[in-house]
């Protein structure tokens, strides 16, 4: 392995553009450029120097900023394509077949193609996740490859640089025959500006905000931690995301949290009404009509005594009670229960009265609990109603057999026998909402509907995410890094004065050139040295005044 020896005697690694020590250009390319390329201080990025094995090639691929950019652009375009139609999880469908039908029905051929291509579930596709994974690899390798040489060269930099280095800086000025000492007053001024000043015979290096150079690497580290946290969710038990529908009064197992049970003590749904709301809202309420103000489910959490086996929870011990409100989830352990959805007014119980059709005389009221019906309802005095069968969601008859399409009492129907003292045989009746069928001929008695009781159903989501602290740390580090790199900049000013009175001044910054221009203006003001020119700007005619930005 060859290394590069500079004229100043410093040995540089292969691939170095500018001597780490004195700043002389080392390559043909660097010599021919009028201005020095100061990215990564002209240091040798290791990835570019070795390209032998396949591992090196893969490594170099991911190390390239250009490749990283293409990966980001690919993610960006894919993400945009995913928003053309709603993703499958926002579509009212329970399975793939229903979803396919939905896309075709609503969006026609385009919807069908979109769904067939898998674009309707783009964000969980292997290739999209693969792109994000590649971005993660790129972040790690590209950062590793740059931060180490950058750190080394910033650490090794000498105060005294070769004159060709100063000349090749974007901000540069020189003067001849300056007899008075330039360096000492400049040092004073630069220290005023909070620069870190180092001197070495006839040379001065003032530096400020070097730590901002680490900003990009710190924010990349934050992103890597964040992506790592997201990956951890694939481990079972780290991430729980379950839905449940729970009716008022019901107690159900908490999905994803074994051993726990929740009871729905009532769903509350409130709207803003004109009377009780602030007057400023009255126009909006008039215009829109109903504006919801609150959705909440009051819950009680229990823990089953019998933990080792599911099914029979044993004694339920109350843990806590409280509401889950939109934006204020019900919390326990590492779980949160969210109020997500609701359905109002599902039938819960129906009250009937046994009535003589002719006389209208009534023999007693009874209530059928639609969730837990009784086999019979004794009305006293020899009057009795026997429930033969119950169809919660009646849809019609099939081969004379009543059918129910679900266990939910959307359309309850009852097959009953009515026992009365005046009849030796009970009368049979099939009772529906607003209708009665008498299968064995005309009856004398009927069940007269009195009242119905309803209840609401809450749609809740149960979630647990143990990766959150990691994500939060990642986010925090990212923000620190991005602020560090954006709100501070790394400025350097080199001043050199020879014994013969030749003065040259150069300035460099990684961003925000205006800041270092102002600092240089301040340093050169009232001296014989002219203000440094921006060698990259043909229109460099800006003058700076007191009161302009100094930081």
């Amino acid at each position, binding site marked *: 392995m060859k290394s590069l020896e500079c004229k100043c005697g410093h040995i540089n690694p292969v691939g170095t553009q500018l001597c780490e020590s004195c700043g002389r250009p080392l390559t043909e390319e660097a010599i021919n450029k009028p201005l020095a390329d100061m990215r990564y201080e002209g240091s040798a990025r290791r990835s570019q120097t070795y390209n032998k094995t396949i591992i090196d090639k893969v490594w170099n691929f991911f190390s390239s900023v250009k490749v990283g950019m293409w990966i*980001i652009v690919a*993610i960006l375009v894919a993400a945009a394509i995913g928003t053309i139609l709603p993703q499958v999880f926002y579509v009212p469908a329970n399975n793939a077949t229903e979803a396919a039908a939905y896309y075709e029905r609503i969006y026609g051929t385009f919807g069908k193609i979109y769904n067939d291509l898998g674009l309707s579930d783009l964000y969980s596709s292997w290739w999209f996740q693969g792109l994000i994974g590649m971005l993660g690899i790129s972040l790690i390798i590209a950062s590793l490859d740059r931060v180490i040489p950058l750190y080394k060269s910033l650490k090794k930099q000498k105060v005294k640089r070769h004159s060709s280095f100063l000349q090749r800086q974007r901000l540069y000025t020189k003067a001849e025959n300056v007899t008075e000492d330039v360096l000492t007053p400049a040092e004073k001024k630069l220290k005023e500006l909070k620069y870190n000043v180092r001197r070495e015979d006839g040379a001065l290096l003032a530096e400020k905000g070097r730590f901002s150079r680490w900003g990009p690497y710190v924010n990349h580290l934050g992103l890597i931690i964040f992506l790592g946290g997201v990956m951890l969710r694939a481990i079972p038990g780290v991430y729980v*995301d379950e839905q449940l529908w729970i009716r008022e009064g019901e107690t159900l197992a908490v999905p994803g949290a074994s051993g726990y049970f929740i009871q729905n003590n009532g769903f509350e749904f409130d709207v803003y009404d004109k009377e009780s709301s602030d007057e400023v809202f009255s*126009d909006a309420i008039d215009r829109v009509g109903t504006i919801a103000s609150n959705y909440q489910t009051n819950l009680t959490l229990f823990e089953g005594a019998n933990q080792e086996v599911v099914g029979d929870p044993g004694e339920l011990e109350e843990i806590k009670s409280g509401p889950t409100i939109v934006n204020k989830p019900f919390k326990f352990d590492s779980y949160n229960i969210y109020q997500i959805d609701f359905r109002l007014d599902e039938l819960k119980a129906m009250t009937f009265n046994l009535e003589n059709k002719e006389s209208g005389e009534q023999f007693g009221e009874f209530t059928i609990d639609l969730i837990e019906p009784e086999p019979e309802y004794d009305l006293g005095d020899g009057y009795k109603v026997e429930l033969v069968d119950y169809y919660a969601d009646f849809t019609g008859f099939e081969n004379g057999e009543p059918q129910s399409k679900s266990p939910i009492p959307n359309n309850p129907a009852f097959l009953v026998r009515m026992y009365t003292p005046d009849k030796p045989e009970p009368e049979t009746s099939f009772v529906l909402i607003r209708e009665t069928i008498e299968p064995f001929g005309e009856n004398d008695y009927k069940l007269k509907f009195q009242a119905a009781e309803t209840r609401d159903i809450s749609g809740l989501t149960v979630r647990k995410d143990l990766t959150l602290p990691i994500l939060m740390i990642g986010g925090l580090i990212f*923000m620190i890094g991005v602020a560090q790199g954006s709100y501070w900049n790394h400025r350097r000013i080199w001043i050199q004065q020879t014994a013969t009175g030749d003065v040259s001044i150069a300035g460099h910054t990684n961003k925000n050139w205006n800041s270092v221009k102002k600092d240089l203006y301040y340093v050169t003001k009232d001296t014989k040295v002219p203000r440094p020119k921006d060698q990259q700007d043909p229109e460099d005619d800006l003058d700076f005044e007191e009161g302009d930005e100094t930081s």
Partner: protein
Amino acid sequence: MTLIEWSSSALFVAFVAYLVATIFFGGAVKSSTHEKTATNKRWGMYGFTVTIIGFIANLTYFITRWIAAGHAPVSNLFEFTAAFGMMIVGAFILIYSMYRIAALGLFALPIAVIIIAYASMFPTDVSPLIPALQSYWLTIHVITAALGEAILAISAVAGLIWLLKNIDMTKKSKQRFWIEAVMYVLILVVGFIVSTTIFSVAYEPVEYSYVDVEGAEQTIEYTKPALFGMNESTVITEGAMQPLIEMPALVNAKKLTTVVWSILIGSVLYILLRLILRKRLAEVVQPFTKKTNSQLLDEIGYRSVLIGFPVFSLGALIFAMIWAHEAWGRFWGWDPKEVWALITFLFYAVYLHLRLTKGWQGEKSAWLALIGFIIIMFNLIAVNLIIAGLHSYA
């Protein structure tokens, strides 16, 4: 006067002040041959002073409305867009105080004016918060995100000035075409504002019934003459006209009507301007940009992204994730608005990395800044109008 009336008046004062300040900034770049003459500076100072006055009035609007409503005025399309306009002025003040470039005011303020006027086209009444918005994260997330977007918008303004200054308007080129397209789109937004204002005065709303995608009967109210009708629409209001063209159920013909009216009226405005001025609009404004240093504009563009990007990341991604976790239990849900915030983030990440490469400064960088602003506006407007998601306000 009630507090809300005070608030509305304050917004109007701000609106007028920004218009006046624009004229002053125009004077500052036009009145003399050199950039930094005494008169020039004076005009610039007047412009900046009026901007500050306008901004104070704008803040008064914001704070009084906040007090009156009891929640930060960022809860519907009007409030959010108006706040965004205000923040663009705030971001301009920040950048102007660093660089003192009068041309920036000449372009940033009219854009803020257009945005505030655009906001006023939506219902402006104070609405109470629906459950999903009842969180202090609404205030934190929306204000930070909007502020970040506003600072990023200044970079697009700097880019626009750079391009107007440096594109050769005498020769036919892609650049000349596209910069004129940008001017045309700005006029279309004005077309929307003009058409909405005209019809709100001169047109009685008409109700139609129609059949939606699911086959259900719905009614809809048109506030502009119905060019396009909803699926199987019939007139309910007596004596009103039947829509000219009926659209399939998938298309929201009411929104389409609004868009087409804006394009029609905007195009008429554009053609009139071209006929009167006998020049491309980009060419008309070009002289105002000539005395500004390109290098400095480029740096302002880059600096605005540097300042805006962390604010945007914090507000539109990090705070958004925290709120999403509080409200829905997942910090990320691939909702279109979220995705477009991510796209904005990725886009500016690309911008920042490309700045490291030579050749992506100056012109290319200016175009990128403009594209970034288009992505932001797409997320603010189009995602709400076209792609309904969890974020669809109003």
